[in-house]
């Protein structure tokens, strides 16, 4: 029997429809693979019965012939999405035991499309991190290893469980969320594809909030086509999210085309920064050649405020986080520290016990930059610079249709190797500008570095132009011929 876990979403969907295999076989294959991969620490909760129930519904529906788009497909769900009756903890001790009585809009949309759930995926605590090391469940171990080494590597973050699960074939695809690179950087580290759509495409309702003006959900999958299929199911207007875009969902899959004739690819000169390994710049050059081969014309562009994007992000994101995380007070859900006398002490003790170091650090920074006397100097200033970053992109898109850069300034690093918070933040140097501008952006695998680890190429599109991003991603995918797989050790 062919290994169903190696198949793409498109192959599983079509094979199931054609009767090559039943949905139950798909679910059983993945359930078995999930149960056998505990060493990766990718799942925080396994829900094999959920995957089987959705599969049985799909098998019955197939008889009647009326099938929704993801019938028979089981998915991994990042632990940031509220799932009815299933632990939803955002990788944090402070939410331990929290079982939402409601379902996030994005996962509800996926369920409506027929998808089942394999389980909840590990992540950096409250999506704050680039290595999955801040999770209360411990780090996810990447299925990838350096050539001739058995050192444990990070799968990136914050959607590290999602990236590792797709790369290890213990989920055919997964949901991720991206605030400042949390879909794209782990996708690059794990040799898979992932797209963050335009801000507002996917409803934020029922996704544990980190930085509300930046948070966006998106799919992580083996291929660009799979990303298009899933994003169509996840996106859509939701009256319950005040920033949800009231626009029809485009047919991204049907309109996929790697013919880029007449398109211009912007190459931002400010992304050539010091300290980036030669492998990564060489892959970037290759990417330019691939897009030329697909018919596109490269043009040099300038995004002058690029170097200010990370410091801007590290004011705005912690500020919003400090407000959003004020709700964790030991009263309504999750952890409560007992044994203190006053209500105020209960709050402080609960938050001291429930939050990890990185989350505390960001709440502290956010509280400081929003506090009386510092608000204008830090927060308002950052919002002004954010406006300039957005303007940079608007001007650039007068000269080009899509922008190509590397996804991350390094390949996957070892667990415990990066201990300085600032050094960790620099991982998102290429990903953060598009987040601040609310633009659609995607990582696709381009090749392996000298150590045998995957490297990603990053495509940024204009507002609402996910199609251009996906099309350019497809052109790269077809030419990169990336078929490398981690050798199974788990």
């Amino acid at each position: 029997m062919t290994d169903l876990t190696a198949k793409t979403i498109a192959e599983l969907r079509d094979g199931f429809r054609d009767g090559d295999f039943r949905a139950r076989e798909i679910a059983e294959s993945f359930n078995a693979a999930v149960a056998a991969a505990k060493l990766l620490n990718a799942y925080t909760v396994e829900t094999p019965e959920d995957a089987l129930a959705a599969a049985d519904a799909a098998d019955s529906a197939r008889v009647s012939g009326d099938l929704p788009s993801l019938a028979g497909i089981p998915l991994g769900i990042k632990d940031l999405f509220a799932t009815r009756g299933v632990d939803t903890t955002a990788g944090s001790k402070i939410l331990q035991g929290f079982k939402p009585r409601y379902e996030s809009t994005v996962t509800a949309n996926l369920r409506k499309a027929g998808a089942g759930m394999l389980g909840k995926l590990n992540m950096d605590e409250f999506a704050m991190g680039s290595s999955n090391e801040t999770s209360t469940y411990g780090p996810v171990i990447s299925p990838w290893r350096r050539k001739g080494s058995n050192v444990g590597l990070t799968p990136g973050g914050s959607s590290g469980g999602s990236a590792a699960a797709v790369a290890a074939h213990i989920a055919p695809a997964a949901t991720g969320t991206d605030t400042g690179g949390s879909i794209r950087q782990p996708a690059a580290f794990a040799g898979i594809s992932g797209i963050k759509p335009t801000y507002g495409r996917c409803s934020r309702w029922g996704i544990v909030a980190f930085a509300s003006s930046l948070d966006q959900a998106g799919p992580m999958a083996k291929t660009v086509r799979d990303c298009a299929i899933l994003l169509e199911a996840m996106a859509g207007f939701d009256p319950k999210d005040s920033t949800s875009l009231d626009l029809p969902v485009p047919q991204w899959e049907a309109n996929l085309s790697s013919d880029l004739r007449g398109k211009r690819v912007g190459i931002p000169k400010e992304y050539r920064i010091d300290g980036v390994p030669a492998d990564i710049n060489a892959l970037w050059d290759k990417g330019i050649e691939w897009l030329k081969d697909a018919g596109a014309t490269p043009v040099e562009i300038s995004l002058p405020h690029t170097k200010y994007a990370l410091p801007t992000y590290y004011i705005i994101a912690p500020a919003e986080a400090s407000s959003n995380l004020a709700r964790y007070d030991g009263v309504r859900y999750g952890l409560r520290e007992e044994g203190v006398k006053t209500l105020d002490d209960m709050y402080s003790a609960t938050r001291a016990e429930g939050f990890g170091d990185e989350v505390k650090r960001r709440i502290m920074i956010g509280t400081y930059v929003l506090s009386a006397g510092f608000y204008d100097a830090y927060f308002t200033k950052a919002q002004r610079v954010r406006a300039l970053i957005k303007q940079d992109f608007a001007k650039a898109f007068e000269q080009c249709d899509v922008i190509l850069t590397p996804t991350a300034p390094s390949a996957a690093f070892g667990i415990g190797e990066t201990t300085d918070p600032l050094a960790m933040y620099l991982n998102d140097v290429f990903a953060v500008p598009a987040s601040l501008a609310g633009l659609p952006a995607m990582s696709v695998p381009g090749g392996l570095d000298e150590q045998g680890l995957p490297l990603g190429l990053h495509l940024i599109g204009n507002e609402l132009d996910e199609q251009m991003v996906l099309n350019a991603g497809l052109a790269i995918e077809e030419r990169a011929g990336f078929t490398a797989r981690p050798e199974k050790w788990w």
Partner: protein
Amino acid sequence: MSVSSEQVRHIAKLARIAMSEEELDRLVPELNNILGWVEQLGEVNTDGVEPLTAVIDQKLRLRDDVVNDGGVQDDVLANAPEAQHGFFAVPKVIE
């Protein structure tokens, strides 16, 4: 600008996070390192630039002012560490 250990203590109080002296001592240089780094934004001329508040331009929607949700007390209280008589219970506030 840099923060003193007194200021960090005050921020921790505002943020309602209990911290030991050791934690405060560790955080002071960490926060100063990060704040020193973000201060490079001072180099950017932002005169006349409006602060960005909505990243994708859209109108704030209004809905009719009618009750469209509610009656879910059990759901609301289901995850409470302590619920009594249909309310969230907290340590005594008034002696």
